[in-house]
């Protein structure tokens, strides 16, 4: 431990003479300090407040920001892109399968003449069993 009293008597006298000088009274207003202290303690953030704030921000971000689904192209295209695609399509020869076209024409005619039944026959869907009324159902049960 260092000896703090290691001063000469003259030095001690000077020290005590200086020590008698009183620092100028504090000009600070104690009430102002206490007011500021009260305000500071009122606005003090607790850990749970910070945590809930962060979670809210994360939740909002997850709602607002969706990652793009793979394979789905963005609908927003520039007009230049759209024009180039249109031009490309216009220059492409139209490839049609004659058998498909013929099949389509036949189906269309059948639907126009026979109604929707033609569509069911065409697609191979069988007719469902006729719905029996109450009398028929009773008779069928009695016959058993």
């Amino acid at each position, binding site marked *: 431990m*260092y000896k*703090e009293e290691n001063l000469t008597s003259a030095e001690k006298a000077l020290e005590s003479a200086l020590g*008698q*000088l009183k620092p100028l*009274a504090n*000009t600070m207003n104690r009430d102002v*300090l206490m007011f500021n*202290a009260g305000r500071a303690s009122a606005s003090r953030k607790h850990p749970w407040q910070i945590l809930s704030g962060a979670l809210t921000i994360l939740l909002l971000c997850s709602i607002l920001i969706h990652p793009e689904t793979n394979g789905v192209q963005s609908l927003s295209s520039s007009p230049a892109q759209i024009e180039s695609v249109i031009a490309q399509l216009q220059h492409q020869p139209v490839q049609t399968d004659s058998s498909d076209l013929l099949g389509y024409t036949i189906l269309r005619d059948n639907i126009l003449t026979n109604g929707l039944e033609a569509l069911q026959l065409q697609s191979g869907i069988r007719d469902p069993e006729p719905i029996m009324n109450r009398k028929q159902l009773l008779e069928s049960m009695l016959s058993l």
Partner: protein
Amino acid sequence: MTKITQKQLAEWYEAYGTQLMLYARQWNPDEQAEDIVQDAFIKLLKQRRSPDNVRAWLFRVVRNVSISKARSLQRREQAAQKLPVKEVYWFESQSNDLIDARLAQSILKTLPLNLREIVMLRIWGQMSLKEISEITKKSIPWIHKEYKKALEMIKKKLEHSSCTKKKI
């Protein structure tokens, strides 16, 4: 180590406020020194736990902020030429003073800042050499040597002055 209450803060303010103001005035004009000391108390209140040595903690905070603010103020003054600074008294003039308050202030102002700081901390801050060494981050022997040097300088300047009321 407990949480600080406003009552404690008021007590510490009464006990150390004046000393801290004197300490902060070394580097800064009066209004700025006030703000620095107030901020130090507010910072103390915001601490989760009370520091082991509250007085030393307050002095350290005031020191760090004062030095930093004084540097930026110096830069601003250099940029916008030196403006006349209003003289602020550090001590109260009392009839029974052994040394004239104004003379003491003028002599203290002529000391190199590191020496003046040690004198301030030791005499008016009533700090031990160990506490001063913790605040200034210097060794205790170095503090002791510089303190003695500062006292010697003050003594010589007082001897050359005729304003001493009483021979020391």
